[in-house]
Structure formats: C-alpha cells, structure tokens
C-alpha cells in the first residue's frame, strides 16, 4: 500500500513539474510553466477537436496527431498522446450523440440512445451523463492501473523468452476473438502485419530483408507511416466514395440545459457502475479495448433492464453504460502495455510506436528504470479525465459548430496535414509516398471487409515475437516443445488454443456476432 502512494506521489509530482520558460521576447525574464499539465490539456483539447470530426475514428486521430508530439521530451509526449486518446474518444461520443453518424466505432452504440435523446431535446443531459460516466470510469481505471502496475511488472520480470512469445500469441488470439467479423480474416491480417514488420534489416545478422535496395526501406517500414496510411488516408478515401455529404442528421436545436435531472442520475448510476466494471475487465484483456467494451456494456444493460423496449428510444442507461465502459477500457488497456510491454490493441500499438521513436522500449524494465515516465502518465490520466469534464461541457457549442464543417473542406485539410506530419518524422518524401500506398491498400482492405486494426497490431508485435521466438529456440537448443513444457508458457498456449476453438465453434460465434449486430437492428 505504501508503495502505491509513493508511486502515485511520484506520478503527481511529475505531472505538476514546473519548467522555467524564458522566451527571448521577454528579455531574460523566465516564467515557471506546469509544462506537463499544459501538454495534457492541449492533448485533450486537440484530441477532442479532431475526434469530433465525423468519420474520423480514434485510431485515425491518434495516428494523425502523432507527429506533433515528436519534438517533445518523452514524458511530455506520452502524456500529451494519452490526452489525445481520451480527447478523441470523448469527441467521438459527442459526435454520436449530436449527429447520427458516430465518429468512431466505439461510440456506435452511444448513438443509438444518445441521438434519440438529442432528438427529444435532451442532448444536454446525454452529453453530461456521458462525461460524468467517463470521468467516474476514468477515476476507477486509474486506481486499477496504479494497483495492478507493480505486481504485474514483477510477474513480467519472471518471464523468459518462451513465456513472452506465448503471451504475445495469446494477445493476438484475443485480438481475433474480440474483433468484429471473420476470425480467419482477422488472423490473416495479423500475419500480414507480421510479414510487413519483417521488412528492413534483421536485428541479429543485419541482413537486409525484402527491402529491394530502396534506402528508405532499409530501416523497415515506418510505423507512423503505415498507421497514417491505413487509418488516415484510407478512411478519407473511403468516406469520399460514401459521398462525404451523406445525410448528416445533425440535431438542429440549440443544446441547452446541460444538467441531468435527479431521476437521470438515479437511473444511470448503476449503469455507470456496471459499465465501469465490465469495461475495466475487457480493457485489460489483450485484444480488448473500447469498442467491444461499449458493445458488451450496452447488451448487458438491455438484458438487465426491466423494460428493455426503452432502449433505442432514448434511454439514459444506453448512453451511460457504454460511455463508462469504453472509457474504462481505454485506460485499463494501458496496463498490459506499461507492465508487459505488449500493446493490447491498435491504439496502444501506436503508443508503442511513439515510445520507440523516443527511444523507450516498452516493457517491465521501463517501470523500474524510468518510474517517473510510467507513474507520470498514470497520474496524468486522472488529470486528463478531470480536464475533459471541465473543458468539454462548456465547449459543447464549439464542437457543434465543428460538426457543421462540410466534408469537402475537411478532407483536403486532413490530406495536407497528414502529409506534412509524415514528412516531418524523418524528412523523407519517400515516407509520404509509402503512406499513400498504404492508404490505397487500406481502402482495398476495407472494400474486402478485412480489418486493418489487427494488421497494425501484428506489425508492432512482429519484431518482438521474432526476437523472443529466436531466443527461446536458441536457449532450448532448437527444441520447439519448449513452449509447451514450461508450465507458464504451456498454460498461456492452452488458453490461446481454447479461445481459438471457442471462437470457431458455431454456437459461440453466433453469440459473438449477436453482440455486434444487436445494436444495428
């Protein structure tokens, strides 16, 4: 317990750190600035700003804004990115309540009841409940991360290469099972990602692999490049052929009366609690994350409700539960990343990319060697959530105005912004071209109903998997049974196999599809 408080203390002192800022125009005068808090605030604001734009999901938002954090010191950059992440998510729910096309997959369910509430003139309470639910979930999740962080790190340090490899297999299998759509196709996407991660020079021998003597490929495909192509450019192209101006059913009346009534609060309190619990659990699971959490929470509420027919007609629980769940999941998904160094979903994969660019190799060592980084980030999560609550409700008017920006002006801006961002990573024009190629690839994938998120996950885990596989086999002198004879590794493998079989069983598959489909009917 004492550890917990001293760790959190370290975190908060990192967040509240003041830096002397002496700009030349003040003539030697220096002002103390709480730099990390400012970055958290800017991140949350910018994240919301982009996240609100319809048709731009959380992953796309984070990918697009990655380059603006590159110039910062590592702690500040990660705090800002985390802020961008929650901001984007919060922005997505604002969009789905006010417009009927949700900005991101995670808020599809919020749109069901949220938009109905907005139509009945109760947009204010819906937005407020979403914010309150998210804040509550965020607080719980922050404490959970702080509590679980240290013990899980200790566990991770006991892992050998064989266990690490098995754990990553488990993570990828989870990602498949919890993803939407065909299991086979999701696995194919992961393997495609693994294959893409092989491009570049081999870590051990330095041999150049599949790079065709193109100097820009010698270092491997840039992570930011692929992510921006697959999520930024591909989404733009896809939205364009849907006809960007598809009927945006924007709520026309002014948003007034933010405060929910007593009855609203009473109705939504248990939903928020359940959503938080469910979201926290699903977030920790590798492959889980915000999307599945909000779907599951909505389904649960509907099942538990005494009068389920209210759902889809503006039930406040239908907003409260998924919003709390997705925020809880968004945060607890940092647990596997920070303690084990394994990103459980695509957004966390982007965080790994960002960490790598700052020279940090995620994993249990980070918590020991750079505790201020990890705990600073955890503390900033709570502050970020508080900021979202404080900033966003008064700013709803601005977000509504943003929703009116026509797509024909928005998409060229995104193209240009992304191009500059990608170029600025390495000052390499070739990277921009590559991102364009991945944009077209992403468009093709969408057209064939392949999910790009598992691909990204595979791409990040690829080098780690290869390294651990190699080491495990070297230590065991080429004996591949090592993964099944070491107890910890064997149990991880057994769980993976079990999950995969479950996912392929027709009965369970139907159930899984039901969770996703229910919301659409």
């Amino acid at each position, binding site marked *: 317990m004492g550890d917990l408080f001293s760790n959190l203390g370290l975190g908060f002192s990192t967040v509240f750190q003041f830096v002397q800022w002496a700009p030349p125009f003040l003539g030697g005068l220096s002002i103390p600035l709480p730099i990390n808090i400012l970055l958290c605030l800017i991140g949350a604001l910018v994240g919301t700003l982009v996240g609100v734009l319809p048709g731009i999901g959380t992953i796309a938002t984070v990918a697009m804004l990655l380059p603006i954090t590159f110039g910062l010191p590592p702690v500040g950059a990660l705090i800002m990115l985390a802020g961008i992440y929650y901001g984007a998510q919060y922005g997505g729910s604002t969009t789905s309540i006010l417009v009927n096309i949700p900005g991101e997959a995670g808020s599809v369910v919020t749109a069901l009841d949220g938009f109905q509430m907005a139509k009945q003139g109760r947009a204010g309470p819906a937005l407020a409940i979403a914010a309150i639910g998210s804040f509550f979930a965020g607080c719980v999740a922050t404490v959970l991360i702080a509590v679980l962080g240290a013990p899980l790190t200790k566990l991770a340090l006991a892992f050998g290469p064989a266990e690490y490899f098995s754990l990553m297999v488990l993570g990828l299998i989870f990602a498949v099972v919890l993803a939407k759509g065909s299991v086979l196709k999701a696995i*194919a996407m992961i*393997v*495609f990602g693994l294959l893409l991660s092989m491009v570049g020079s081999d870590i051990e021998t330095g041999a150049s692999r599949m790079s065709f003597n193109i100097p820009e490929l010698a270092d491997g495909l840039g992570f930011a490049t692929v992510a921006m192509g697959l999520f930024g450019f591909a989404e733009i*192209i896809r939205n364009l052929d*849907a006809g960007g101006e598809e009927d945006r059913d924007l709520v026309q009346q002014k948003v007034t009366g933010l405060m929910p009534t007593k009855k609203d609060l009473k109705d939504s309190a248990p939903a928020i609690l359940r959503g938080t619990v469910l979201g926290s659990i699903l977030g920790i699971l590798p492959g889980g994350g915000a999307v599945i959490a909000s779907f599951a929470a909505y389904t649960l509420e509907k099942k538990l409700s005494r009068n389920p027919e209210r759902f889809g007609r503006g039930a406040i629980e239908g907003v409260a539960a998924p919003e709390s769940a997705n925020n809880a999941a968004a945060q607890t998904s940092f647990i596997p990343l920070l303690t084990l160094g394994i990103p459980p979903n695509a957004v966390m994969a982007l965080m790994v990319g960002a960490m790598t660019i700052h020279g940090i190799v995620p994993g249990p060592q980070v918590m020991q060697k750079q505790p201020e980084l990890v705990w600073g980030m955890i503390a900033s999560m709570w502050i970020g959530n508080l900021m979202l609550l404080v900033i966003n409700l008064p700013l709803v008017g601005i977000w509504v105005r943003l929703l009116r920006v026509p797509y*024909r002006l928005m998409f*060229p801006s995104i193209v*240009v912004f992304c191009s500059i961002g990608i170029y*600025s990573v390495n000052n390499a024009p070739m990277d921009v071209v590559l991102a364009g190629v991945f944009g077209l690839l992403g*468009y093709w994938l969408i057209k064939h109903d392949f999910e790009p998120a598992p691909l990204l996950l595979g791409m990040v885990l690829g080098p780690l998997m290869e390294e651990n596989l190699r080491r495990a086999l070297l230590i065991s002198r080429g004996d591949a049974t090592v993964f099944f004879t070491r107890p910890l590794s064997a149990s991880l493998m057994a769980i993976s196999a079990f999950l995969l079989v479950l996912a392929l069983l027709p009965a369970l598959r139907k159930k899984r599809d039901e969770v996703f489909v229910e919301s659409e009917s």
Partner: protein
Amino acid sequence: MSDAPSHAPEKSILPSWVKGPQDFIGGIALMAIAAFALWASSDLQGMHGFSFGAGTAPRMFGVLLLALGAGVTVVGVLTEGPRLAVYAWRGPLFVSLAILCFALCIRPMGMVFSAMASFLIAALGTAETQWKETIIVGACLTAFCALLFPYALGLPLQMWPTFLIR
C-alpha cells in the same frame, strides 16, 4: 463496406461456383502477397543449426499467410458472401495525386507551395468542391501549418522554394 448493387458488372467475370466473390478475390490477393514475400525473401539465409537465419521468420510468416489466404479463398468459394464492392475512382485518384504531389514538391518547392498545391489537388476528389471557399480554406490551412510546424513544434521544415531563398 457497402455491398455492390445487383447490377455490378464484376459479377460476370467470376465463375458461378464462386459464392462469395469478395472473400474469393481477397484470399487470392493475400496469397499473391504471400508468394511475393516468399520470393523476395528467398535469397536470405535459412536455419543453421538451432539458430534462425535472417530468412527463417519471413518465410514462416509467408507460408502461414499463404495458407490463410487459401483458407479465405476456400471460404469465398463455399459460403454465400457479399459481391465485390464497387470502387470509386475519383476520390482515390485525386487523394493519391495530392499525396504524390506533396512528396515531389516538398524538397524543391518548400512547404507553403506544396501544402497549397496538394490541398487544391485533393479538393478535386469530390464533385462538391466550390473553388472560392476551397482556395480560402486552403490558404488558411497553409498559413496555420506554416506557423504550427516550424514555430510551435520546432520542426525544421523548409518554407519557401529553394530557388527563392538561395
């Protein structure tokens, strides 16, 4: 993601025993990618003793992808699935051109020119573009980026064409 309308011309290309064209083509493309990767990594060293060579892992994943692609293809043959989606040409073409233009112009012409030019090319991607507002917004965005990246973020970007600043 939307399914093609029933009069999609692509339908006629595929034989009638293919029940799910979308998966069928998708699987074949994956197999092609895997085959390409296997060919590209064929000159790399394989296993020696217990230790992996540079080519072992790429080949492993290549074979795996080949098998999975085959699986998706088989599913496409056997199960009823959506038809091929209709591709739009306008959006993808102009967005790609805009990206390409940016990549080609950024070194010789600097950011201000490249950003504006690629904004205008991208705007061709939809028929709804109204030029007056597009030019105004493009100019504002360019100005914003010209302030944001070099000043606020401290990234060393060249602003103006090389022949002007030399």
